[in-house]
């Protein structure tokens, strides 16, 4: 090695190390003290109560939920998607890499919606609150999870009985729960059904808009590993089939939608999960169970 090469190498090393010192000074200290959280809590409390706040830095979730009541509702913690939310807010680290604290989670929830408009941002020290508008999001008319009493469930052997938020069926069990689908919490009807059976969920006299939107996923990650069987989903409006889907767990939180005619209609959804058990080295067995996670909403959306 020549002296010139050595000098150059030392310079490169010194430059890299100097950058590391600067990065270390930024990285190796906590930014979020009680003051920062209190400031954020005040800012969130001032928002309209019907507008949802999302966390744009998902890994902050536990601390954010600890300090900020506005981030605790299911609509914030486990939203189905961004449909039906004409205005919403995103709280994130001011240093977030993506503009507007827009996370990959929010991107996934956006689905086929166009990118929302960023109306403004409020500086909260190490945190920043962004305000978004989504004119194409439509209006939510009804949510099957919000009114479980309005649902009628039955399996192949008869109707299911609702008690304390749980429907007991002869061939399965359905609860209103929050399940992990693709490592994210999703609020849904958690459905455990015997192999090869079909569950029918009906909601008579439902106010429909222009579209029925829903999602189906499977929980949890361990059961997904051991069972890839698809599920069959059929959607009927006034006993007329409007959609039929075959969905698998590799699709994650799989979205489905069917256009509807505005007005009052009877809606029925038939789900056949085929298999709920697990394949292991010993073969197929009923345990551990893979639960289906289903949600459905009626929305009124303008044509895009």
């Amino acid at each position, binding site marked *: 090695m020549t002296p010139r090469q*050595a000098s150059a190498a*030392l310079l490169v090393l010194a430059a*890299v190390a100097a950058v590391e010192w600067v990065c270390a000074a930024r990285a190796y200290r906590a930014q979020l003290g009680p003051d920062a959280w209190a400031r954020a809590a005040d800012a969130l409390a001032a928002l309209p109560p019907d507008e949802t706040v999302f966390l744009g830095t998902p890994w902050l979730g536990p601390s954010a939920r600890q300090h900020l009541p506005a981030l605790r509702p299911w609509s914030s913690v486990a939203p189905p998607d961004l449909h039906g939310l004409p205005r919403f807010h995103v709280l994130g*680290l001011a240093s977030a890499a993506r503009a507007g604290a827009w996370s990959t989670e929010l991107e996934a929830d956006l689905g086929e919606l166009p990118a929302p408009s960023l109306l403004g941002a409020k500086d909260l020290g190490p945190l920043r609150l962004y305000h978004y508008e989504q004119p194409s999001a439509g209006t939510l008319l009804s949510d099957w999870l919000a009114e479980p009493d309005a649902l009628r469930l039955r399996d192949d052997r008869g109707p299911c009985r609702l008690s304390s938020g749980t429907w007991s069926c002869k061939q399965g069990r359905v609860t209103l729960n929050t399940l992990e689908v693709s490592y994210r919490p999703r609020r849904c009807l958690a459905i455990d059904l015997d192999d090869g059976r079909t569950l029918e969920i009906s909601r008579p006299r439902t106010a429909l808009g222009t579209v029925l939107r829903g999602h189906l996923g499977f929980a949890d*990650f361990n059961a997904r590993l051991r069972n890839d069987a698809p599920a069959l989903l059929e959607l009927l409006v006034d006993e007329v089939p409007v959609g039929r889907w075959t969905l698998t767990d590799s699709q994650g939180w799989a979205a489905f939608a069917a256009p509807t005619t505005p007005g009052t209609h009877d809606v029925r959804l038939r789900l056949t999960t085929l298999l709920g058990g697990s394949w292991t080295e010993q073969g197929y067995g009923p345990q551990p169970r893979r639960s289906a996670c289903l949600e459905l909403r009626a929305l009124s959306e303008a044509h895009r």
Partner: protein
Amino acid sequence: MTRRARLLVAAALGLAVTLLLSLGHRRVGYVRDEGIYFVASRSHAAWAARLLQTPAEALAAPARDRAFAVNREHPALMKIAAGVSARLLAEPGPAPAAGQERAEAGLLPLMPEGAAMRLPAQLLAGLAVALLFLAGAGLAGPPAPRDRKRAPAPKDRQHVPEASPGPGQGPVPEASPGPSPLLAGLCAALWFIALPHVWFHAGLHAFDVPVAAATLAVVLIYRRALGDRRWALALGPALGVAISIKHNALFIPVLLALHYGLCLLLARRRPTAGQWLPLPFLAMAVLAPLTVVALWPWLWSDPLGRLLEYVEFHRFHAYYNTEFLGINYNRPPLPASYPLVLTWATVPSGALLLALLGLALGLRRDLRPAPVSKDSPSEHVSKDSPSGHAPKASPFEHAPRASPRWSAPLAGRDRRDGLLWALFAAFPLALIALPTIPIFGGTKHWLTAYPFLALAAASAWVALARAVRRAHGRWRHAPALVLALVLVPGLWSTIDGHPYGLSQYAPLLGGPRGAADLGLLRGFWGHAVPPALLDPTRPGAPIYLHDLHELARLQYQREGRWSPGSAPSPLGRARSALLFHERHMRTHELQIWSAQGTVAPAEVLTLDDVPLTSWYGAPGPR
């Protein structure tokens, strides 16, 4: 720097590291695996005590098997040492409640039982640091003279090895002092220990840093063994001790054989008869297995069957879950980039660059076949040498050059240190990158590479220091300054991350926040316990422990650090619940939300804002 001074500094560094680990790691929670190691250590040590009292009974197969059946998927050596350490140094636990165990007092009660059991591993970490200092200092110049003795003057310069100036560099004027051995030694030692993941693992009653230390020791002995019969004989037992720490060491002889073969091949001359059957390898083949069996009483009955059972366990190891770049992996293959990216993500880039430079310079030098001198058939002449006759001797070379023979198969030959370090630095990462390797997750599985990266870094620093010193007076202090610049980020990272170093990441990545953004794992051992939980005076209530292993909790209880009322409980009956954040644990978090009726934890343990552990339903701070 005299040899004695080097030894003194090495010993001081080793002891300082051991002391800091011993004190500092009392804040590090007990990791999942330690729970069973604690249990096994007590069982093994009880057997050792019985061996002293009633040898005949202890040596009987049933007693042996009872003592060593527990946790037989790992050799017993570290656990025996830990158990003995506890019997010597453990403080007694408080008076136990009915049905509870308490730590028993050792002969000289100085520390909690868990800390005492961690001590042998911490001593080995100190040993690694001392060895790295000595080896690093040795790179900086000629062998240190023995105090008050002059080094023997060579009679024939052509046949006496000189300390090589280091890989890839030219001659140094004799009058000018070489790079500081102290700094070179510190470079190697600190490069290794001042890394947050190394520091974290170095203090645990576990095997990852101990086997890294043992691997380093074996390799350094091997270097000596290539030219010295006594070291050749020591190599076998040393390898046996390394294998008795953890199975990673089983790969050592393979890599040493590869290195030896390449040395013979690159020497471009027909090996002598003695070189075909060298003593170091004979010693490893014969003495290492005997040492392993001697140090692992479980193998004394049905050694072959039990050895096969041990190998099978590790060949078909269960897959763990690990998060890498936002994806949870739980069945092979992991991306081949996994160990490389995680190494970059956890080792500061300046230090890594220095090590890579050292490897490159070493390989450039060592992979060049030796030219054969017509004048001197027994020697080769370095092309690098401007005088044309300086042999490419290792900087560690001590003995007068001699002809290779079976007891010293590379005596007088180039031992190609750069190649040796490159093999041992690259192999652990390459192994984990193989698509068929079970998914373990975490950096601990290739920590055995780091001592050799540290030596490569030190050799690069020495090479740079020598080169710039020849040219510019004003650059004289630049190498020392750059060394400080390069080593501080690791030290900073280690201090900032303690006691949660497993969750720490390098500055260029953005530390823990940057790693969380990228979706890199935050931990996997259930050790980051909120300090308030370890306050025994806190009023207890049934608690769901999640990934805190029950045996680790029992260790806290034995030491009086666990509130008697905080009995472990299923989630449905628990008043509070712990959650250690990992991607695949999301289901558990949702179950806790449901059981506790809230999505808001009462307490969140963080490292630089990144949540490591949530405590739901925790009583408020006292």
